[in-house]
């Protein structure tokens, strides 16, 4: 397309959305005349103005309906195979509920870690996967040998695994300093030997030690239980089960811009509300698409926006978004009415009847849509 045409189209930037402009650029034939292009732009602007939402439109309820109505068509099956027999992911209705509640503990926390283009190779991704996977000592152990008479605990480690994780027994020693108080630690080739200091007492302490060292983290990031390198198109991606967004982003080779996490609360704490809002939109959209439902993204955006509007991530629950409402009666009509009425009385709250339910309760027109404009007539 000619440059002047492109510039002309771009001059509509503050009147039309970028998506529409892009669409125009795509569909206009290259040899278009100036007059025709002007006409196209005029008509597009007209069409856009006609398609705008009317003032007073109760967009909130429409969005709620749009998400609530197909809820009955979603499957309840908690687990679903993401892609080719990768990992289990919560999908369907339970996942939607999880997101909208802004639950702190989600059922299947996951991350998709992208590496920077320059770093992207099969070798690197494998190395990286080993680096971030949380490895506990228990996973490396071949055998525990308890000697009651000598009061020792001999831990035999798997040589092959040690090599794979690029660890030596010597390096491990310092990790156990704090965990093994009351014991001295010896190292043999692939064995750790804990010897009880002082007089031999009960065997119990040895058992406790054994349990304790089993869950000592020796490598990786906390919370990342499993890492799976996968090929996505041309590049390799790390899928993790368990999340630790903050620490992952600190690696130099990680492409922080594309790396995502499905735990909204974690995104919120690490990256802030705006990121959380986008994460909600992405996650909900993913579920809805997987279910084969058609919900316009605008509706999901509105839900995400209301969850993040105060600057703090709030779930759509009685403790979250609903508790923010200005109207006492609106809150009372949702859940725990007595509590809200009592607090309102103590505080001396005034309900100004500006939203919907209160006006329904007292039989007055609702300030939405056609109930919004008032008409004053002079009576003679």
């Amino acid at each position: 397309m000619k440059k002047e045409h492109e510039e002309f189209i771009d001059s509509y930037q503050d009147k039309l959305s970028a998506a529409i402009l892009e669409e125009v650029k795509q569909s206009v034939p290259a040899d278009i005349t100036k007059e025709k292009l002007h006409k196209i732009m005029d008509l597009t602007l007209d069409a856009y103005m006609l398609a705008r939402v009317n003032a007073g439109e109760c967009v909130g309820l429409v969005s709620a309906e749009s998400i609530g109505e197909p809820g009955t068509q979603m499957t309840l099956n908690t687990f679903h195979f993401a892609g080719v027999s990768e990992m289990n992911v919560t999908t369907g209705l339970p996942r939607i509920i999880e997101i909208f509640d802004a639950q702190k503990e989600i059922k299947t926390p996951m991350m998709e870690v992208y590496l920077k283009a320059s770093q992207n190779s099969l070798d690197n991704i494998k190395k990286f996967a080993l680096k971030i996977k949380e490895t506990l000592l228990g996973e490396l152990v071949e055998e525990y040998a308890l000697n009651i008479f000598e009061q020792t605990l001999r831990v035999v480690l798997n040589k092959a695994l040690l090599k794979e994780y690029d660890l030596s027994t010597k390096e491990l020693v310092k990790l156990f300093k704090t965990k093994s108080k009351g014991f001295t630690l010896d190292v043999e080739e692939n064995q750790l030997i804990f010897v009880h200091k002082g007089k031999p007492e009960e065997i119990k302490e040895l058992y406790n030690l054994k349990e304790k060292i089993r869950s000592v983290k020796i490598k990786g990031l906390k919370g990342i239980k499993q890492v799976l390198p996968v090929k996505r198109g041309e590049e390799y991606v790390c899928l993790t089960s368990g999340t630790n967004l903050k620490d992952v982003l600190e690696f130099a080779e990680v492409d922080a811009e594309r790396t995502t996490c499905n735990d909204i609360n974690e995104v919120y704490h690490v990256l802030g509300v705006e990121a959380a809002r986008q994460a909600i939109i992405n996650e909900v959209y993913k579920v809805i698409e997987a279910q084969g439902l058609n919900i316009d993204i605008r509706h999901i955006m509105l839900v995400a926006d209301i969850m993040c509007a105060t600057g703090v991530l709030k779930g759509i629950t009685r403790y979250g978004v609903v508790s923010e409402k200005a109207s006492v009666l609106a809150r009372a009509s949702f859940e725990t009415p007595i509590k809200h009425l009592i607090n309102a009385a103590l505080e001396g709250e005034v309900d100004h009847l500006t939203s919907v339910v209160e006006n329904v309760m007292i039989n007055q027109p609702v300030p939405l849509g056609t109930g919004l404009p008032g008409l004053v007539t002079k009576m003679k």
Partner: protein
Amino acid sequence: MMPQVHKKIISISFGIFSPKQIVDSAAAKVVTPELYDREGYPVDGGLMDLRLGVIDPGLRCKLCGQKLKECPGHFGYIELARPVIHIKFVRQVYDILRSTCRSCARVLIPDENIKKYIIFLNNLGAEEGYESRRRKIREIVAKYKLKETCPHCNTKQEKLKLEKPYNFYEGEVRLSPIEIRARLEKIPNEDLEVFGFNMAEFRPEWLVLTVMQIPPVTMRPSITLESGERSEDDLTHKLGDIVRINQRLFENINAGAPEVIIEDLWDLLQYHVTTFFDNEVPQLPPARHRGGQVLKTLANRVNSKEGRIRHNLAGKRTDFSARTVISPDPQISLNEVGIPKDMAMTLTIPERVTEWNKEHLKKFVENGAKKYPGANYIIKADGKRKTITSETKDEILAEIEVGYIIERHLMDGDVALFNRQPSLHRMSMMCHRVKVLPGRTFRLNPAVCNPYNADFDGDEMNLHIPQTEEARSEARILMLVETQLISPRYGLSVVGGIHDAITGNYLLTKELVLSREEAVDMLYTCGVDDFSRLPNKEKLDGKEVFSVLLPKDFFFVGKDKSGNEVKIVGGVLKTGSMDKSNLGQESGLMLRNIYEKYGESFTADLLGKISKLGIAVLSRRGFSIGIGDMDLSAETVEEIHSTIEKSEEEAMKLISLYHKGQLEPLPGRTLEETLELRILESLNKARNKSGDIAMKQVHYSAALIMARCGARGNALNIAQMTAIVGQQALRGRRIDTGYRGRTLPYFKEKDLSPKARGFIKNNFKSGLQPYEFFFGAMTGRDALMDTALRTPKSGYLYRRLSNAMQDLKVEYDGTVRDASGKVVQFMFGEDGMDVSKTKNGVLDVKRIVQQVVEDVQ
């Protein structure tokens, strides 16, 4: 006529009554637990005192002089012999007591810091709400409390404990409500600000009751049983208890009874007052009737779905409504609803008599209530209502004049709101034009089944008749079916041809050749009377017949369901056949384009014609499904069998590999999981493959036609009927073995073969083996359970969503704001477009470009 002025409620404020206000606002003081005297007349100073309102016909309220239903009821009060803590405020009392000094009653914060904290707390309260503000106070006071002495008077503080539900202990000593009240009284007003109370209208000692308000009789009416006995409301019972104990307490105190007895009675009074407010206090046994039934007291009346708020205030009942079974009628328009005549004679529309319609309306009165287009009532100018009967008819006819309102029967063309529950979206309640029909069911065009999610297996629907001109015009303009054609959820059509309408048009446009006579006849049945566009030939192609319905200047290029091009040039269907992707709902692309170009009423009309044409075609051509449709040729059967066997063999091979330990696990999976996944994969492949074979082989059958054009059924259904039902899956896995290592006793233990784990080799036509049937039943039950569990879950999610978002609206400046004016979005959906005005969420630029480019050429 006097202009009517409506009062408008601007705001409602909440607060706590002071003892003085309770006494001042009371109509009577209740002093005796007796209700009625010997004649059955309410006792003065009793709980049914006539000053508290009337519930008996014939009696008049002693306070306002009004009769039953006119008198709203008046509050009374009783004076409590000893103060009692209000159960709902125990928490607050506890917080206040803990944060104030036990001797000087000042807040336990040094003077110099109080101001600072008040500002801090008020800001917190405004930002995060009352709850977190209160939590913060506790934290602040706890900080200062470490010192253990009051910063104002240096008294040592004792540890205060709340023993639920309402007993306070300081150290080991129990605090009586009198002492608590005395402490609260001492708190100076300035310190109250810390707690965030509304100081002008509030004192903390009011949280301990000395007088109690008695609700009016009208909110606790008694019922007269058949035997003439009176049965009192639960609240009256409870109040009776309170008054009785209160009297006893008074007497004992006056008589100077021992402290123990008084304490006991006092506790009892506290219990009764507590259960009067809330009978579900966790640590307290609920008060019961003599029969053991739990009393329903104040809190129970407000709470929950059946409570006052959600049941009576947020949900209301209405007159002028009807409900009956629905049935389909493709002959009525999309915008119409068929209403039984009997109903039309009960539901009425009020019409005001004017000089111009007087004679017209008189005719209805003449017909009376029993002859169809008649009238049931007239309302005189002064608001009095009269029934029209054969006796009163002549009298009424004579007196009718301008200003009267006549409630006439429902007639064709009136507007009605039609609704089916569950009303999940706005298309669940649409406006229809009335069409009075014989019969006893509502009739509706099958094309609107989809938005209502209705079928005709016994569904019932509701009908409401708007009674005012404003309501009617709003319904007509905003809610009429044709205005709701495009879903606000995804911006595509929600109504469209269904079932026969699609099949008929598919056959017509795909293969039929009609004689001119037939074509004219069919078109005429669907409302076409201009045949000038029908080509002047003896034999007509189905496409030519269909094209007559399309507008002359309509251009469309699209795809049909199987991906072939559909081209309409100048209102003539050139290539392709009409099927679900152009006529159906949720897709309906051709319809969507017509809507865009020719508007809603044209689309609704066209849809009606298309549906009728489809049905006319089918009834002429004949269309029926039979078991023969499921027959396959011998070779096909052979082919399918070999496919299944092959994949079964593959599965067995995998199993033997697994047993030998040679199976390679998939990354992140155990060996067992890998085996399961690979078997499932290969068996599903077998099903799909044999389904494809069956689809290809079934050359001509009604089932196949329906599946192809998307009217009903799909390839999988046909494959299951003709070829193979396939692997049954529970929770994404094959049928699992139970505790005994096998799915059914019919199989050997640890049998991993497809057969033993829910692979159904047969098809529905050949019939299933017993064990196969059982596996099918397992998945069937799982599906049922899934639906049963999902409905309430998604219902609750929906309720929460709608409650959270119901007050969001678009302001005149284009921002989305909530009721208090907080901005939620600066532009709805980032571009301010209404989804129902877009095409699947995007503005159709291509059409504009095409239009401009082609127009000039």
